[in-house]
């Protein structure tokens, strides 16, 4: 009954005066609470035994205290702390109802929290390791604070001039000493405004509430594959055979080295089918298997068009560093078919890594600004944090 007594003591501690607490027979009080719904007499008897000045006051509170008792024991029970008290109370409908409700509550919260944690797992590492350089923060804050403060000061100057004009109109014959007094007042008001505004501006800059986090931007745009989804069933790759059916079953005696995908080294039909299937998976947002298949066929050596899809799969499955390396490699390939796509997704990779300067450089480049990605690039540039 230890847990039950602890709960009862907690519940009654504010209702029984301290000088009477020593007289309480906690086992009996607990028994009284357990049977309270069907029989109030045992609990009343225990209360009268305490010889309180006003026992009726406590008796009046008992229904509420009983509800608290049921709630606490039920909560304890749902959390896995099963006690003798809770075992006895399983005979009580009030208790069973409450346990059922609290179990539902716990399960709903468990479901929501599991989903949240699973969703945020890839980002959680960045959260615990995020340590921006103090110098960068300091410089950015200083620069932005200066700009914003300058703007504010200009606004105040305009306000102050307006006040002075109004003052002159109201007192056209004001004497010189009075004017000096007014100026002092304006300066002190100005200083007060400046300090408050500076604090607000600095707070605003650090917080940047109107800007999205790098992670958020990356997540919003990384899997936006609408730009590659309308590429043909061959993923836009240069192929030799155009009458190929993707559902062909490959038999073992099929000419194994007949090329299908053109490239630095041609792939066999079997390899090509695997590549097309992987590209279809990427288009559907399924990256794990596609990444394995594409890694195995070694596209960096054999086919740089296929390498683009591998990099895309890496970018979307938490291998940002590898994706950036591959995209960077592809930026140096002359007359590359997916030149624009490579630049756009490289920028996303940089955003994920927190290298915003590089990302901004790419997104505002002429190549992107005159491409199908121009509006997305503008949206991202508007959302990116200042530092």
């Amino acid at each position, binding site marked *: 009954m230890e847990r039950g007594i602890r709960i009862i003591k907690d519940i009654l501690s504010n209702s029984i005066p301290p000088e009477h607490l020593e007289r309480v027979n906690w086992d009996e009080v607990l028994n009284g609470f357990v049977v309270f719904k069907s029989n109030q007499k045992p609990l009343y008897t225990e209360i009268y035994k305490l010889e309180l000045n006003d026992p009726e006051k406590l008796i009046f509170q008992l229904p509420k205290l009983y509800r608290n008792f049921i*709630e606490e024991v039920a909560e304890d029970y749902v*959390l*896995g702390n099963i006690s003798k008290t809770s075992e006895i109370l399983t005979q009580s409908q009030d208790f069973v109802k409450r346990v*059922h*409700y609290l*179990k*539902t*509550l*716990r*399960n*709903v*919260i*468990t*479901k*929501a*929290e*599991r989903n949240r*944690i*699973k969703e945020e*797992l*890839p*980002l*959680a*590492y*960045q*959260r*615990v*390791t995020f340590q921006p350089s103090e110098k960068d923060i300091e410089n950015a804050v200083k620069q932005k604070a200066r700009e914003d403060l300058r703007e504010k000061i200009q606004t105040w100057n305009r306000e102050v001039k307006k006040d002075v004009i109004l003052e002159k109109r109201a007192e056209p014959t004001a004497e010189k000493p009075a004017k000096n007094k007014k100026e002092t007042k304006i300066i002190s008001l100005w200083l007060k405004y400046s300090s408050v505004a500076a604090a607000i501006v600095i707070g605003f800059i650090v917080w940047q509430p109107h800007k999205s986090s790098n992670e958020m931007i990356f997540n919003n745009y990384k899997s936006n594959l609408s730009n590659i989804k309308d590429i043909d069933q061959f993923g836009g790759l240069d192929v030799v055979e155009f009458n190929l059916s993707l559902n062909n079953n490959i038999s073992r005696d099929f000419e194994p080295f007949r090329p299908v995908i053109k490239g630095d080294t041609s792939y066999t039909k079997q390899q090509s089918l695997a590549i097309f299937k992987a590209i279809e998976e990427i288009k559907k947002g*399924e990256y*794990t298997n596609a990444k*394995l298949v594409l890694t195995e066929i070694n596209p960096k050596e054999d086919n740089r068009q296929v390498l683009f899809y591998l990099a895309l799969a890496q970018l979307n*499955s*938490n291998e940002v560093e590898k994706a950036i390396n591959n995209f960077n490699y592809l930026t140096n390939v002359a007359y590359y078919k997916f030149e624009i796509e490579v630049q756009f997704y490289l920028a996303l990779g940089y955003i994920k890594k927190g290298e915003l300067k590089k990302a901004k450089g790419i997104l505002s480049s002429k190549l992107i600004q005159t491409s199908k990605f121009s509006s997305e690039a503008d949206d991202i540039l508007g959302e990116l944090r200042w530092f």
Partner: protein
Amino acid sequence: MDIHQISDQELIELIKDDSDYLGVIYKRCYDYCIMFMHKVKGSNNSFDTDLDEVFNDAVMVLYEKILEGNFKLTASIQTYLSSVCRFQLLNRFKKNKQNISLEDFDNNGEHLQFDGAVTDTLVDVEAENEEQFKAMENALTEMKNAGGKCYELLTLFWYHKKSMKELSEIFGYTNPANAKNQKAKCQKRLEKLAFNYLNA
């Protein structure tokens, strides 16, 4: 603190306080677990399952074990997670009536790190009364969207198993009794919202 130098045991202590440290586990163990599952699956590609999902569930198993306070690290976290992935994958195969035995699995996974005795798995949450469950879900979402402390307070108490003392420290209440009062108020509010959904 250099995150790369943290031992498994230290990591478990950190996770108890802050679930974001699960990200370190994700970073350290993801690649091996996915590779491990591909290996044990062997040539059984006819059953298509999302291995990322199996891995995420394994991380949740570990987290909930840590929260329960009865998690004893007998091998590395990596070995534990691989073992949970193995068991969960096998369950998924069985659920889809795939003809594969534990032996096949373990033969495929030879030379890889796992503990065959681990049979921990993520138990799905039950919804005894679907209607009540849905109403409560809607109420909780409404509470979350409304902002304020209630959603966080209830999730920290019911899922992350924080005590009243810990809650009072996290939210800056003067004592555990205040945290308890606040929790009771939030729970009452949630109950009212759920009631409205149930009777809408």
